[in-house]
């Protein structure tokens, strides 16, 4: 029986603020899962702490609501132990780029075949609106006593520098486009990263839905234009097609340059994609030939209540 969108929803009461950008992301994830027809019990959603952390409770697959900043560690552990799982990790920008930035970088180096989605709204919502790592220097959102004294992290640039092999940005009010990006990210062979711009209607009074929509930008013809545009509409070609230094460097640097665009023109879509880098599971298979057929989670470890592991050769080598 084909799975419908409704099958991926739980009946857990959603307590996000009215108008929260997070709704669009959850919907997009559920739509993507339905479109790909991923069995509910073969997918695991991992989430961090904060408003976005509740995501795993709203999706009717395995759901693991972890700790602040640590979602990638749990998710990678599960995926490595059971590579058959479809693993999606989600978290806020404070979660992933503040307290969890070390894990973010390390995950890039590993390239475990899974997806990481950051709900990027520039504030720590659940603790009442402090500045998050993506808020720009000097900006003052509603509940800050004084303007932000830190510069911002560039999530796309950091992902590219860290070795993520699929890097994209979505916008939570363009749910269809976001759904398409999630499908691409999940299907990507390697670690995929999605930075999702997500207005916090309660605490971020700068990067609002209207701001993204460009209501303040009026051109000469008295027409307003959205700040958000799609890279694919401009013929941007993010894919690394062959394994040469020139090709890789070109694709990396154009992605990095695009990642610096902000203000009146904000790119969304795929910045970078490289499937020529081996996923971590492949790296393990190179060491352990039957790793994929017989991964840790599938191994039988006992026989009649006792170990079936035969360590006699190792013991022989230690015997005097």
């Amino acid at each position, binding site marked *: 029986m084909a799975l419908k969108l409704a099958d991926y929803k739980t009946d857990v009461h959603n307590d996000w603020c009215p108008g929260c950008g997070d709704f669009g992301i959850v919907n997009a994830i559920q739509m993507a899962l339905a479109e790909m027809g991923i069995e509910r019990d073969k997918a695991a959603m991992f989430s961090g702490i904060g408003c976005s952390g509740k995501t795993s409770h709203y999706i009717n697959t395995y759901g*693991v609501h972890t700790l602040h900043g640590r979602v990638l*560690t*749990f998710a990678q552990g599960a995926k490595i132990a059971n590579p058959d799982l479809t693993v999606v990790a989600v978290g806020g920008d404070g979660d992933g780029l503040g307290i969890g930035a070390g894990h973010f970088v*390390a995950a890039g180096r590993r390239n475990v075949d899974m997806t990481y989605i950051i709900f990027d709204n520039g504030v720590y919502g659940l603790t009442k609106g402090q500045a998050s790592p993506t808020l720009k220097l000097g900006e003052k959102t509603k509940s800050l006593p004084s303007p932000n004294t830190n510069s911002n992290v560039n999530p796309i640039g950091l992902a590219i520098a860290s070795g993520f092999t699929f890097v994209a940005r979505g916008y939570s009010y363009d749910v269809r486009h976001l759904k398409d990006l999630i499908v691409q990210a999940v299907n990507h062979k390697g670690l995929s990263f999605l930075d999702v711009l997500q207005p916090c209607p309660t605490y971020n009074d700068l990067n609002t839905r209207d701001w993204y929509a460009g209501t303040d930008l009026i051109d000469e013809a008295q027409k307003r234009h959205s700040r958000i545009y799609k890279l694919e509409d401009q013929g941007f070609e993010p894919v690394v097609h062959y394994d040469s230094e020139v090709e890789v460097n070109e694709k990396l640097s154009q992605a990095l340059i695009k990642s610096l665009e902000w203000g009146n023109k904000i790119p969304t879509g795929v910045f970078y994609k490289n499937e020529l880098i081996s996923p971590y599971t492949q790296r393990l298979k190179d060491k352990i030939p039957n790793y994929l057929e017989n991964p840790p989670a599938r191994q039988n470890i006992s026989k009649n209540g006792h170990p079936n592991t035969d360590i006699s050769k190792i013991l022989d080598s230690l015997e*005097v």
Partner: protein
Amino acid sequence: MSSVDFTWLIGGPQGSGVESAANIFSKVCAEMGYQIFGKREFYSNIKGEHSYFTVRVADKKIHSNVNDVNLMASFDAETIFRHFNEVISGGGIIYDSNLDETKTDAVHTLDAPFKERLHKELELKNKPFTIAGVLEIAKENGVKLFPVSFKSILETLSEETENPRLKGLVRMYNVIAVALSLGLVKMPPGSLQKTIESIFSRKPEIAKINQQTATYSYNHATVKFENFNYTLPETKKEPGTLLVQGFQGTALGKMASGCRFQPYYPITPASDESVYLETNEILEITDDRPGSTAVIQTEDEISAMGMTIGGALTGTRSATCTSGPGFALMTEMLGWAGMNEVPIVITNYQRSGPSTGLPTRHGQDDLLFAVFAGHGDFPKIVYASGEIEESFYDTGNCFNYADVFQVPVIHMMDKFHASSVITCKRFDPQKISINRGKLLEKVDDGYRRFEFTDDGISPRSRLGMDNGIFWNTGDESDETGHITEDPILRVRMMDKRMSRLDLILKNIPDVEQAVSFGVEEYTIISWGSTMGPVLDAIDLLKKEGISIGLIQLKLMNPFPSDYVSSLLKDAKVIIDIEANYSGQLGKLFKQNVARDIDYFILKYSGRAMTCTEVYDSLKKIVQNKANKREVLMHGA
């Protein structure tokens, strides 16, 4: 036949082959049928600082080191400066005769506090601040000196074998020292050759040079050295004897117990275990295709712990291995594992704290930290192994406890374990049982991961299992695993989780909780690696007609209060022996058993206890001459 109990010490700069020399010596003695207890001491340094290895050799089971050294083999000046006083009358020092005039000031790795103490002693005894000076003291102590020019041994050998490279090969000094020692004690030479061959089996050229050097040096000792009081003739070998390093107990235990996932972050003295697991990552499985352990080096201990939990959620037996500073980073996640009833094993090889402390030195500093680790109340097991042989079987138990009670288990080991080399009975994996508790093989409809049950333990699904969908959260949750802040549900959930502390005490057999070696008027409580020296010390006292009782604590949390209390009801004086400042077991004991400790024997110099110093302190206690708190100091 007189019994053999012989201690050999070798020292040298780190990186000069002290460890391989000790391995050769230990292996040769073990091959000849002796029991071995060896211990490595080293600085937090890669090359140059002083390291040494003490190997005790006996023809009966031994559990520890002694203070007295019978033969010291040295090829540098620092070893002599630091250890000459440990060699007893009638013992010997093999040393490089070219070092006679070396001054203390010429050895730049001699640290100031040590040098000050040494100079004071030399001044007092009116000796020059040189090797010759300290060796005069040794001689006056009744120690025999065996000078030999390491340089000329290599020169002569180089000519004889027509191998000019050999002449300047100072890397051979360690093998020369070992072979001279074995020649001096008249150990049959065959085993030395065999051992070198097996150690260098992948490098036949190097094996050959080492063998030539060993033969030459061995013969030199038998011909040129005068008679020595100690000999090590071949003795009867117990069949099925292993020579193992401390970390191999838990590593092999993990392989046998079906641990298939071990993320870790490098830290002394814990990483050897993980590296060994990875070296042996592909496993033979009886009647099945090969299995494997995925050993993952992570970016920090937080990640190691997160991955371990993630792995465990897939139903994989998952563990990590760390030491105090790393465990400190893991504690937030420990609470998450407790909250979500995730079975994981954390092997904790303790070292001297606080903070970075003495990073390569011993300490049982983290017992209370492990017992109280994490914020909030959640159930966990803290389990401590005494000896290395025991740690193999205990590892199997730890995984069963984790699975059956669905709690994190912290398996306490330490640096003394990790860097000891010992002989013991061959491990028998079939003595390990595997019990996965309520881990499900299939799930029926309507599954709830945290369902209330009679015994407080819910059937466990695993990520990816058909129909087994569950949710986890670090928040308080309902039976499905979704967040709740309902006060009534909160209390029920807390009661459900915490009720397993009683269940644990009820279900783990007494002998796995605490081990009684007899209860007497004076009875010791102890734990972990300190058990070794305590057992040997008790043995020594027994020979003098003094019987002292001993209870080994293994289950540290939940604490087996009633059982321990009943065991100790006839003991009048309780002595707590452990390697930390505050007597942490004593505190735990007092808290749980509501009884005072009468005497503490403690050591926190970073060096493991010897049975000699434990014996001395116990004797003082029995003679009523001891302080309430005896602090041990032996060891350079």
